[in-house]
């Protein structure tokens, strides 16, 4: 019983507020008129189809590409360097990527300037195409680093890595080539551990608003955008319709996720024959992996370069390949918002540290079988359209008089940070060989010392990665933060969104790049400090 108390801090600071916020949001969503209205909305079904299409296929493509890159470079000299590249890619905010990618592919964008030219841009349907293909591509590219990082850490850290090393050599001695071992031994084992990251990527892709507004289809837009417009309206009836829409979208997403889980089971059953078909000399897909890697890196480099240039030019009309006027105005305004920057950094550090503390306390006091409650709630909170959860959180904070204060800001930042930390950390933390601790205990180490001297160093890398992920999640929080701050505090994303609501692209570019900096530093720090000393 005493053990169970260790879950209390996590419940009090995270789970309870989250569940209460959900309940608050959903209870206000029980409004028959609103449900009737959303089902009468002409954009509901086409929008839903677009959301599911872009969410599902962007996830599938990102997974495929990340797996191919991993298959090609696993156990190669490049392998350890790839983590840094993935971290850099993860650090770039989604909106920044969409902005830069949009400028790359739109009809008046950089690629057409380079390849087509002429006085007027061609009338191609590239960005904002009606099928959401450009949104799908941007989402897929943006999620590759995250999924690759998840794969990388499975293969490189902890006991699984050591076990896979032996299995690899064993499989080679049984006559299997590197590609065959990847497909038949490595991939089946890591795929089962990618479930939660994939759920997050899918639900993010199917409910994303900011990226969709930049390069998504517009008539109809994805359902999340329809809902977002409604929730932002001044009229309560329209808000209620939006709430009903977001609950509906959430239910569909949960349903699709469950279906997809069954689908994977089915596929893995069908793939059984392939796994045991016998030795094959198939080699690692180095060329395919290199092509994939080059495309992803080229896209990110192009996006970052274009964003940098865009942040420095007030105007860059077609068909100029290089802008003629430069100005540091946008960066000047950014520097003028430094108080917002410090607040964001502070909140990021505090929330990621607290989140790490809370989940570690959970792991140390709760049996692993309870983890699925933690992970389920985490995934649900991440899968919900942000506005839905945020409105519930806001109602809750309002009830306790916590709006416009730092405690309220802390609570709403902690919610997604802890969820991500739990998703990223649970598997590596739980898969640490318990015998290490048993050995330490047999050497009369106290529990605290066992944790401090054994677990902490062994789990340094996943802990730091989780902290960096949490930090980067905290730094980009917008909707819930903006509600909780009630205009009394300004964080960096708030400054970015308000300033760029005027449509000034230089400002948007400068601020989204600024948003990328703190997470980038966090990931680099995690990668450097997390390197095990014994290797």
């Amino acid at each position, binding site marked *: 019983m005493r053990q169970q108390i260790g879950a209390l801090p996590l419940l009090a600071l995270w789970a309870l507020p989250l569940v209460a916020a959900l309940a608050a949001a959903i209870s206000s969503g029980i409004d028959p008129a609103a449900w009737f209205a959303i089902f009468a909305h002409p954009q509901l079904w086409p929008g839903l189809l677009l959301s599911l299409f872009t969410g599902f296929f962007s996830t599938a493509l990102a997974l495929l590409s990340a797996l191919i890159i991993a298959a090609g470079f696993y156990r190669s000299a490049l392998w350890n360097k790839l983590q840094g590249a993935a971290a850099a890619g993860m650090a770039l905010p989604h909106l920044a990527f969409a902005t830069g990618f949009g400028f790359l592919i739109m009809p008046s964008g950089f690629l057409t300037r380079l390849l087509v030219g002429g006085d007027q841009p061609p009338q191609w349907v590239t960005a904002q195409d009606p099928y959401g293909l450009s949104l799908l591509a941007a989402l897929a590219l943006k999620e590759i680093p995250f999924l690759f990082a998840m794969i990388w850490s499975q293969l490189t850290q902890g006991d699984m890595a050591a076990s896979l090393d032996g*299995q690899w050599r064993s499989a080679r*001695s049984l*006559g299997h080539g590197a590609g065959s071992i990847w497909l038949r031994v490595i991939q089946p084992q890591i795929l089962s551990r990618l479930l939660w990251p994939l759920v997050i990527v899918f639900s993010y892709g199917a409910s994303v608003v900011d990226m969709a507004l930049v390069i998504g289809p517009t008539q109809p837009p994805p359902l999340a955008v329809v809902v977002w417009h409604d929730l932002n309206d001044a009229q309560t009836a329209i808000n209620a319709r939006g709430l009903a829409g977001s609950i509906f979208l959430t239910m569909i997403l949960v349903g699709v996720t469950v279906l997809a889980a069954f689908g994977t089971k089915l596929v893995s059953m069908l793939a059984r024959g392939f796994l045991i078909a016998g030795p094959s000399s198939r080699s690692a897909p180095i060329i395919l992996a290199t092509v994939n890697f080059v495309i992803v890196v080229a896209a990110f480099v192009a996006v970052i370069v274009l964003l940098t240039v865009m942040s420095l030019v007030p105007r860059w009309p077609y068909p100029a390949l290089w802008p003629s006027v430069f100005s540091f105005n946008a960066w000047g305004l950014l520097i003028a918002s430094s108080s917002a920057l410090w607040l964001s950094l502070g909140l990021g550090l505090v929330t990621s540290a607290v989140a790490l503390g809370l989940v570690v306390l959970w792991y140390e006091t709760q049996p692993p079988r309870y983890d699925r409650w933690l992970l389920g709630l985490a995934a649900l909170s991440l899968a919900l359209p942000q506005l839905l959860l945020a409105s519930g959180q806001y109602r809750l904070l309002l009830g306790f008089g916590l709006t416009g204060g730092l405690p309220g800001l802390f609570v709403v930042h902690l919610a997604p940070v802890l969820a991500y930390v739990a998703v990223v950390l649970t598997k590596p933390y739980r898969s640490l060989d318990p015998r290490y601790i048993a050995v330490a205990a047999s050497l009369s180490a106290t529990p605290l010392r066992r944790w401090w001297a054994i677990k902490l160093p062994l789990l340094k890398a996943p802990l730091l990665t989780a902290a960096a992920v949490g930090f980067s999640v905290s730094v980009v929080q917008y909707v819930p933060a903006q509600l909780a701050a009630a205009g009394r505090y300004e964080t960096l994303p708030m400054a970015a969104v308000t300033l760029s609501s005027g449509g000034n692209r230089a400002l948007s570019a400068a601020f989204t790049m600024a948003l990328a900096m703190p997470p980038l530093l966090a990931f680099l720090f995690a990668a450097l400090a997390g390197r095990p000393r014994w290797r």
Partner: protein
Amino acid sequence: MALVLETVSVSLNGAVLIRPFSLSVAAGEVVTVMGPSGSGKSALLSLIAGDLTSPFTSSGGVRLDSEDISRLRPEQRRIGRLFQDDLLFPHLSVGENLLFGMPRGDRTKRLAAMEAALASAGLSGFSKRPPHTLSGGQRARAALMRTLVAEPRATLLDEPFNTLDAELRQSIRSFVFDHLKSRAIPCLMVTHDRADAPEGGRILKLRNGEVSDD
């Protein structure tokens, strides 16, 4: 078929770990290499298997009878290995582990061969079981059968009995040697325990980089 090493040597970061030596292991013979830890025993096996990686470097030739295999990739050499751990793939059942390494061919024949191999290891009825539900001795036997059904031309044993208790060790040891002998597969074993070696078998010592007869 015989496993032949011709003036092979191993260096670690440029420093010589094993000085050049030659060795021939005859079909069905088990040659034991003994040496303290860090002497390069495992590196020697990796050299033969073909997965020696930096910072190790090597020279010399590895042959199976007259075929030079030192340029072949590990999976092309058809040299079976057994490690300290059984290394059965956790996502495959015991039977599937055997099928994993069995040469391709007719499905029914492969399944029959798998069941027969399990039966010969006293593991009838275990084919659908996940590896982690087996005892240590059962897993060790399954791992050997997995190696054997892959039809290796030679085998390398890396302290294969280390994790087994004394009683089990004896039975597994004779189980392994009997099977290798009956199939006439040459075998090189490294260990630090003289008791692992088959009775009357050839024993080499690896000490200070020199390989010498016991």
